[in-house]
């Protein structure tokens, strides 16, 4: 028997190239004859465009095209809300807005040309907060229709060519209810209410956004793109250009980080395409770091009011939530994060009665996209603060209170989520036990009145997240093509994109497990829509689960084909045969045929046959109904994280010392990979909690650089003790569940609870930067208030 690869520590297949600087990212790609593009962005937060004069820019030697909205009257609105024109026509709504674009022989010339474009603006009042946006007399952000003009000749049936405008500043709303909130309130012995304020952050991918667009002489479009959703984007670009999607090919060079930032189509992509079309040359457009800060999506600010109650014995009775999301000027995935937030609100703990009302509100701020955790960091921050407060109010310890309300395997929640595997209680007891949570919590608390300025705290928080895909598109599936060549080398063609998360390695591992081959026998092809089969994209922690099941399906089909042929040849029954160590083996482990040789014999026989299989895996999840009820994911992931901190009450500096995590991951497939994923997620959660904030004042990003936007640096990274709870999910590939987003989700909540444990002060606004914490500790800040108009 060949040894299993499952659970082993396997270095990522792309690691040596990345570590040695050999990986060629989009920045490194040189397409012969390519022009370099730059975008002129608005200098006004909110204004009418009075005039644009591009004559001087066009006259600059080396400039091939300068375009504005007037040059592409057929452009149409893009993105999740279809409220966003790539090039702005008569109005700019945020500082990132694209007003014109240049294609030139070099980046320097393009940059110089931008400076020659004269734009005259007539300023409009700036809506800097959701409160201003909701005021009765607030100016509207999208007052009139915008989009393709009526003369547009490229109309695709059924797709909007124009955004009709909005009569108010509300971009999107969600309402959810289960049970009867009045009854839940009546049954509660303790009721508490708080307002939480969550802040702006952005992804800070090491690889900035970029695209290369190229038309061939027949008008087929080739895009080199960093997108996380190549197949859906083909469709979007086809609509935009009014061409058949079959004429678009997307190749993804190695992507320097995604984290959700590359899940939507953004103006820079169509703009590069417009320029390529107009100049008939390949066009390369890559952001500067500053642009990445200004013009890539954000995790948006949320104001959240939470009211919850429980009985004296600690049983939760209800939870009512209202949120206002700052949508920014356009609607991308950020507006739909309530979809995930409501799962945490309704189903992380058992709550019979729930109500949730939320709206995403247009402002003139940078607009909100999707970001690892997808609203769950915000929801968990509030819910887990209340778990501590309610526990305290009924005189229970935080662990016992959580265990009392935690979900068990088999539960179908009122929202309709079915927890077929659920290691939540084990996560709680493991993380609390390994961190000595209760003892430390009591000790820290006893030291509140000590004179020492530096206090210690410990806090716990847990999370629930989809771990088996998420059915938000008509399909949540992924295809695989698997090919065995005549040397028994496997080419695995998968729809799943690699964005650094290690999916190639884990998919190769799963295939090897089925075919009894070493990892070196597999090549993964995953970045070319002309070759790879369909997939909805890398998001929702879905790739290992969905693409993994798909890869296993294809491998099993190949195995069957090989064993059937081997049975015919050896006279044994196929069921007695196996694949192991590169051989077809008998039940007793005897090596019957060397696999490469056997495959060659298949190719060269009179009944010549190739071993090439396809498989399409669609998870058994369902769409939610109009009331948001239903089982959206085939499996759910759980985690508990305990954070230990130190807070200097004289400076407000919070140091995260240790994170003890317990993660229900179904099963560990690649131990090295999952450790990396969880450690990275913890650090991302730490940044969200303590150091990072995109400072937006009156629509202006004040810190578009790594000097003032503080990512966590190496010396700040805490000690980590991560345990894996292996619940062996029945539907998961080898029992595994998705874990990509999970580790980032509850750090902020646990740190908040730890600050309370250290100081007795509960801070309901993020981030916990020194000044914010110092103000809160010294009564010099206004706690957030509910001011949705």
């Amino acid at each position, binding site marked *: 028997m060949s040894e299993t690869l499952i659970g082993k520590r396997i270095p990522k297949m792309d690691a040596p190239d990345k570590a040695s600087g050999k990986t060629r990212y989009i920045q490194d790609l040189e397409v012969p004859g390519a022009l370099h593009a730059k975008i002129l962005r608005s200098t006004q937060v909110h204004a009418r465009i009075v005039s644009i004069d591009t004559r001087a820019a066009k006259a600059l030697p080396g400039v091939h095209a300068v375009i504005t909205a007037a040059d592409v009257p057929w452009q149409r609105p893009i993105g999740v809300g279809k409220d966003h024109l790539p090039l702005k026509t008569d109005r700019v709504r945020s500082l990132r807005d694209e007003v014109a674009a240049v294609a030139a022989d070099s980046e320097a010339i393009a940059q110089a040309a931008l400076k020659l474009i004269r734009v005259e603006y007539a300023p409009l009042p700036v809506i800097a907060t959701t409160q201003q946006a909701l005021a009765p007399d607030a100016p509207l952000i999208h007052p009139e229709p915008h989009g393709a003009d009526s003369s547009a000749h490229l109309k695709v049936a059924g797709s909007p060519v124009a955004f009709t405008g909005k009569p108010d500043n509300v971009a999107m709303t969600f309402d959810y209810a289960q049970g009867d909130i009045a009854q839940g309130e009546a049954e509660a012995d303790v009721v508490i209410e708080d307002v939480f304020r969550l802040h702006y952050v952005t992804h800070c991918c090491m690889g900035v956004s970029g695209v290369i667009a190229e038309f061939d002489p027949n008008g087929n479009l080739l895009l080199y793109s960093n997108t996380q959703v190549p197949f859906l984007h083909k469709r979007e670009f086809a609509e935009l250009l009014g061409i058949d999607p079959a004429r678009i090919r997307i190749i993804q060079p190695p992507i320097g980080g995604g984290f959700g930032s590359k899940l939507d189509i953004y103006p820079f992509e169509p703009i590069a395409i417009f320029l390529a079309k107009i100049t008939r040359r390949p066009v390369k457009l890559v952001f500067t770091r500053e642009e990445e800060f200004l013009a890539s999506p954000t995790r948006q600010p949320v104001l959240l009011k939470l009211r919850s109650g429980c009985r004296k014995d600690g049983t939760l009775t209800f939870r009512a939530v209202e949120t206002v999301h700052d949508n920014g000027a356009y609607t991308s995935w950020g507006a739909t994060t309530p979809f995930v937030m409501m799962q945490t609100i309704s189903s992380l703990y058992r709550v019979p009665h729930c109500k949730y009302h939320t709206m995403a509100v247009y402002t003139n701020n940078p607009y909100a996209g999707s970001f690892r955790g997808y609203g769950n960091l915000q929801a968990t921050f509030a819910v887990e603060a209340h778990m501590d407060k309610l526990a305290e109010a009924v005189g229970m310890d935080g662990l016992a209170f959580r265990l009392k309300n935690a979900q068990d395997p088999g539960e179908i929640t009122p929202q309709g989520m079915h927890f077929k595997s659920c290691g939540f209680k084990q996560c709680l007891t493991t993380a609390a036990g390994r961190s000595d949570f209760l003892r430390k919590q009591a000790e820290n608390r006893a030291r509140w009145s000590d004179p020492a300025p530096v206090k210690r705290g410990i806090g716990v928080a847990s999370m629930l997240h989809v771990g088996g895909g998420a059915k938000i598109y008509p399909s949540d599936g992924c295809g695989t093509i698997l090919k065995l060549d005549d040397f028994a080398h496997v080419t695995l063609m998968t729809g799943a994109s690699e964005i650094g998360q290690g999916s190639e390695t884990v998919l190769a591992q799963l295939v090897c497990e089925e075919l009894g081959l070493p990892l070196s026998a597999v090549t993964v092809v995953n970045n070319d829509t002309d070759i790879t089969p369909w997939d909805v994209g890398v998001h929702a922690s879905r790739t290992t689960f969905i693409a993994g099941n798909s890869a296993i399906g294809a491998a099993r089909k190949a195995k069957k084909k090989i064993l059937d042929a081997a049975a015919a040849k050896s006279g044994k029954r196929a069921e007695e045969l196996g694949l192991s160590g590169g051989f077809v083996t008998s039940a007793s482990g005897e090596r019957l045929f060397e696999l490469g040789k056997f495959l060659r014999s298949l190719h060269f026989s009179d009944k010549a046959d190739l071993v090439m299989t396809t498989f399409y895996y669609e998870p058994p999840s369902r769409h939610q109904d109009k009331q948001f009820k239903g089982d959206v994911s085939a499996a759910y992931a759980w985690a508990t994280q305990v954070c230990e901190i130190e807070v200097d009450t004289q*400076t407000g500096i919070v140091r995260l010392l240790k994170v003890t995590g317990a993660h229900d991951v179904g099963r560990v497939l690649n131990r090295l990979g999952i450790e990396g994923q969880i450690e990275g997620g913890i650090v991302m959660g730490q940044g969200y909690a303590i150091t990072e904030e995109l400072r937006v004042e009156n629509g202006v990003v004040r810190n578009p650089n790594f000097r003032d936007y503080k990512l*966590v640096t190496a010396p700040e990274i805490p000690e980590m003790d991560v345990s894996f709870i292996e619940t062996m999910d029945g539907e998961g590939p080898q029992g595994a569940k998705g874990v990509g987003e999970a580790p980032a989700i509850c750090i902020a909540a646990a740190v908040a609870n730890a600050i309370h444990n250290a100081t007795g002060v509960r801070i309901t606004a993020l981030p916990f930067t020194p*000044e914010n914490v110092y103000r809160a500790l010294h009564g010099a800040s206004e706690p957030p208030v509910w001011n949705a108009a």
Partner: protein
Amino acid sequence: MADIERYKTPTSLAEATEILRAGNVTVLAGGTDLLPQTQAGRVHFQPTLMNVRRVPELQGIAEEGAVVRIGALVTITELLESALVRGRLGILWQACDHFASDQIRNAATVGGNLCNASPAGDTLVPLLALDARVVLAAKPDGAVQTRRVPLAEFLLGPGRTCRAPTELLAAVEVPLPPAGFAGEFYKHGTRPGLDIAAISIAAGARRDGAVLRDVRIAFGAVAPTVIRAPRTEAVLEGRAPDAATLAAAVHAALGEIQPISDVRASDWYRRELIGNILKRVLTHACQM
């Protein structure tokens, strides 16, 4: 945007000052301020870019009599590696230990830090507390001439010094503090490394029985330049640092600073920090 027309690499102070005399020169040392500033468009290159890194007269750390002479090109790493700096100019050494990252420390020079004249410049705070003076060199008429300017007079405002465009900063001279002088440098940022100070304090004194002598205190990032705090020093001089004295020192300090609110901190928070940290630093100093 004017382009660089000439790149010069003088190999002597005479040659460098001669190039400067011709005018329209940008001086390049480690480039860790100059390059970010020019790329952001805040500073424009002059037609001549002069890299001074090969000028031997600007190198080296030497003790001359009761003065330590630190050449303008001495890097932060070299300061950290100097036993003399570590042993006798402890607060300067500590400031270097809080400075940027290893990569930046290898390139960044003390001369660049001084000429950049940031109110948050890390070496400026201890150098001011240590009564340093800068040596400026020029070649007005055929011969190199130097003048010495106390650091407090050299610094005029954010990014502004009294250095004439034809002058080169050759060195900074630090009188050795009296025996027994000890102190602490504290830099407050939001993280342990790679940060610009939201406030910084260099404080030192000599213990004489129960009381403090030769008290020197300087603050960073709470005024248009780094500043000395003479009134705070006077409150502490000759006194035992008991609670009442510390409170009086904080009171005096708050009268000497004029912090602003910016993306790093509010003026209110800067005041709070100066009060809290000054007490902390002085308490530490008293325990030494």
